């Protein structure tokens, strides 16, 4: 199975208040060292995959350059990343190559290098088309910038474009939200993501919201109910114009779904390079078979990863740690953990989870263990079923964490 490749560029011009990612503002001097480090990681990928106990694959069919703000890198640096990827992996025809861009960073040289490197998809971090709203959380662009960028991208031949929007920004009103939605639709981008603002400890605004304070305009953040209304309004309007809901936060015209992001939800393997980059690889089938079927008491040669279905590993989440080549953090997934992922990741998709298919993969008994949970969730109006497929209801999508929680068992951490 072809891999997805993710490259993390944790550099930004400013740190937005809602950002809960490991990106930050660093001097340009650090960029070069970082590119060296990430390129050497790409070269070492087969070794690392083996160390982690994952199944390596050289063919790749999606590449995603995310951030941070990858387009802060200069042309040579961007080009070197893509060249290194192409030298070390076997890119399939029609590989989806996405770059995340902050509006206003798409200079002519950047556009030129994107085109030359075969980038065929761009994700624009718009967040809001209302200038005041965007400014309050630290975005540096205006509405007009976005439309200029769109025009430039299309001139450069890149038409597969995503626009990110955030529902629940400080000062956002129903009317503002409708304006952002209208502009997003009018932009004719075939893919739109709608994220609801998250109040968590990993962003400055989130911490302030939890603390009930007034920094970062936290006290002007719409309440949960209003944000939920924004989200529902977004789903309705986008679906109505043929930009169909396919994942909790994602909408696309038919055929424009993000193939890279789908790998995350459908548990297809991927490798991540760079600060706080995440990978998931399947565990060698031999190991699994040894443990499940052919294991004997005296067999000393079985794979140390026997019994695990897949392995996740994460690169250090600080630039310092990454440059210092600290080892990745490894989380092996038991079959039980994998089954749980089938549910809490797969249910994010509007198409839902096919229980029959899951049973084929993991055994009928393993899936049947969730029967009571599933019927309780159906009774509560959070899940619905259609043949052998279960999916979240509209209400269930807004309460998806409550649903997912039910599919999780809390065990002692493994590995």
């Amino acid at each position: 199975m072809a891999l997805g490749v993710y490259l993390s560029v944790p550099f930004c011009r400013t740190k937005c208040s809602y950002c809960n990612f490991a990106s930050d503002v660093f001097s340009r001097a650090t960029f070069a060292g970082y590119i060296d480090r990430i390129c050497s990681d790409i070269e070492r990928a087969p070794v690392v995959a083996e160390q982690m106990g994952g199944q390596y694959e050289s063919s790749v069919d999606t590449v995603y350059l995310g951030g941070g703000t990858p387009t802060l890198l200069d042309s040579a640096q961007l080009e070197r990343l893509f060249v290194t990827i192409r030298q070390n992996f076997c890119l399939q025809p029609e590989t989806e190559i996405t770059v995340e861009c902050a509006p206003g960073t798409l200079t002519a040289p950047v556009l030129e290098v994107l085109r030359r490197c075969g980038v065929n998809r761009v994700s624009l971090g718009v967040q809001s088309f209302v200038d005041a709203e965007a400014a309050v959380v630290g975005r540096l662009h205006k509405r007009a910038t976005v439309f200029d960028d769109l025009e430039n991208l299309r001139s450069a031949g890149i038409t597969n474009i995503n626009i990110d929007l955030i529902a629940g920004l400080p000062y956002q009103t129903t009317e503002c939200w409708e304006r952002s939605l209208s502009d997003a639709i009018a932009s004719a981008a075939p893919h739109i993501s709608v994220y609801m603002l998250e109040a968590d400890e990993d962003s400055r605004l989130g911490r302030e919201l939890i603390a009930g304070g007034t920094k970062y305009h936290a006290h002007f953040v719409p309440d949960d109910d209003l944000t939920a209304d924004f989200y529902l309004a977004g789903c309705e309007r986008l679906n109505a114009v043929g930009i169909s809901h396919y994942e909790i936060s994602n909408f696309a015209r038919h055929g424009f779904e993000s193939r890279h992001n789908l790998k995350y939800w459908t548990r297809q393997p991927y490798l991540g390079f760079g600060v706080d980059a995440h990978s998931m690889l399947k565990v060698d089938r031999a190991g699994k078979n040894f443990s499940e079927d052919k294991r004997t008491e005296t067999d000393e040669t079985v794979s140390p990863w026997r019994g695990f279905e897949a392995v996740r590993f994460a690169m250090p989440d600080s630039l310092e740690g990454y440059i210092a080549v600290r080892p990745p953090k490894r989380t092996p997934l038991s079959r039980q953990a994998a089954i749980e992922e089938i549910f809490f990741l797969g249910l994010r998709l509007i198409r839902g989870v096919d229980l029959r298919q899951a049973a084929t993969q993991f055994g009928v008994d393993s899936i049947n263990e969730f029967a009571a949970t599933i019927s309780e969730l159906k009774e509560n109006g959070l899940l619905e079923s259609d043949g052998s497929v279960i999916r979240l209801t509209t209400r269930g999508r807004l309460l998806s964490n409550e649903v997912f929680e039910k599919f999780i068992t809390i065990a002692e951490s493994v590995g």
Partner: protein
Amino acid sequence: MDRALIRNFAIIAHIDHGKSTLADRLLELTGSVSAREMQAQVLDAMDLERERGITIKAHAVRMMYQAKDGQIYQLNLIDTPGHVDFSYEVSRSLAACEGALLVVDASQGVEAQTLANSYLAINHGLEIIPVINKIDLQSADVARTKEMIESTVGLDTTDALLISAKTGQGVPDVLEAIIKRVPPPKGLPERHLQALLFDSWFDSYRGVVVLVRVFEGSMRAGQKIRLWSNGRVFELETLGVLTPKPVVINELVAGEVGFLFANIKSVADTKIGDTITDDEQPAIEPLPGFEEIRPMVFAGLYTVDAHEHTQLREALDKLRLNDSSFFFEPESSVALGFGFRCGFLGLLHMEIIQERLEREFNLDLIITAPGVRYKITKTDGELIEVDNPSKWPNQSEIAKVEEPVILATILTNEEYVGGILKLVEEKRGKQKSFEYVSSSRVMLQYELPLNEIVLDFYDRLKSVSRGYASLDYHLAGYWESPMSKLDILVAGEPVDALSIIVHRDFAYDRGRALASKMKELIPRQMFEVAIQAAIGAKIIARETVPAMRKNVLAKCYGGDITRKRKLLEKQKEGKKRMKRIGRVDIPQEAFLAVLKVGEGSS
């Protein structure tokens, strides 16, 4: 020792008026403690006492003093607890003395506890020597202090001693005054033994340590002694005195004070105020004044972690070895699981027990709203006592409820009287007296239902008087009152741990306050949750926690599924820590915070 050379005395003082400092000076002057080994305030032994600046355990210290008349006297200083919760212990300590020093801070004047304890001393026929302390302070007002002592305690202050315990000024005169003015003890060594047990505590090496004052007869090691109240007999193992270091002696005779070990395992056997006599030649009658200690304040104690229930039981058992004045029995609550119903002497006592359990036994505790013990006459004529809301009968079965009432004495400066009157009226108080004890100092006496005192009265009094009011009270009988059980229902299910007994006039306000507090504390659930306050079947207040609309993790940075899973696990674990009542998850904090909903904040 010649009885004529013995003096037994106590020190009566308000907190911070200098009792411990004066005791330290007396110990120094008599050479009982060398300056080097002296920690500040040696009488307060337990950490907790030192921290709170109050003496919980009474102690008795023997000092030998060569007076100006050339004679060597035996002075026994009997320390008394300084808080209203322990007034019975105070009365027993005073009963062991012939005299008392009444220490009053010259800058503060007479406070309520000082007054109450002075009355106790007068009732016991003690000679009281007024001592005006802190005369070195700029704000000292000796004349006004004297005036207050005269008008409140009713003592002649012509010969009051003026001292500064801090600097030592005037302290030698205190020793001389004790010799001259406190009468020597009466009683004869050859009579049948009558000794007053005025304190006891558990020592993990020696078992129970008992402090005694011998009134008649004598005690010696090997003697068989009998405790009057329960008839139990023990062999007297060791006799001693505290100097304050323990020193073993052969004999304690009439008039003397000391400690004993007799291989006693439980302090529950050694009741304060009991009489100790000789088993073979017992006295004809006990000493007067013994009472069984009865708890006044009741609350449920639960561990936050249900698995710690056994540890809590062990801790309570151990603590009771040390403090027989609190009571506990198992109870269970739907909301909180298995716990104990505990009875305490008062609120401070309750706090001390809770703190000791948490500190010495490392337990996290939930304590339910404190309440009192009601006398209920049922319609069928049966008389029952109820201290636990969950045992409250149906309203239809109740003919009459009587609630305990206290007589409270409050001393304050006149500028705070307005606020205090408002407070005591709000707490259903009935005025007994209102008196100016000096030009600016007022003494109020009110009858108040104990139920109104236990929740937040101290804190409220402190805040309306900015700390310039002192309170003392004692049980003064019962009132018949329309008391009802107020229940809190969450999604239709009563939450037993939140039930309280409340006066009918306050039911609506309390119900509303509790319901709205619960609304703040219960997180939104998957469905709408009704919170109701009810008396019997009657709903008197209602709040609604709307259903949760949104709980979504939107973004997935670069495929970080591990983080997503961790968040879901954290969410799930958070719910496990909550108490589930019916279908509703209630956080532990809700049970704690409800205690803080006093009438004042409603």
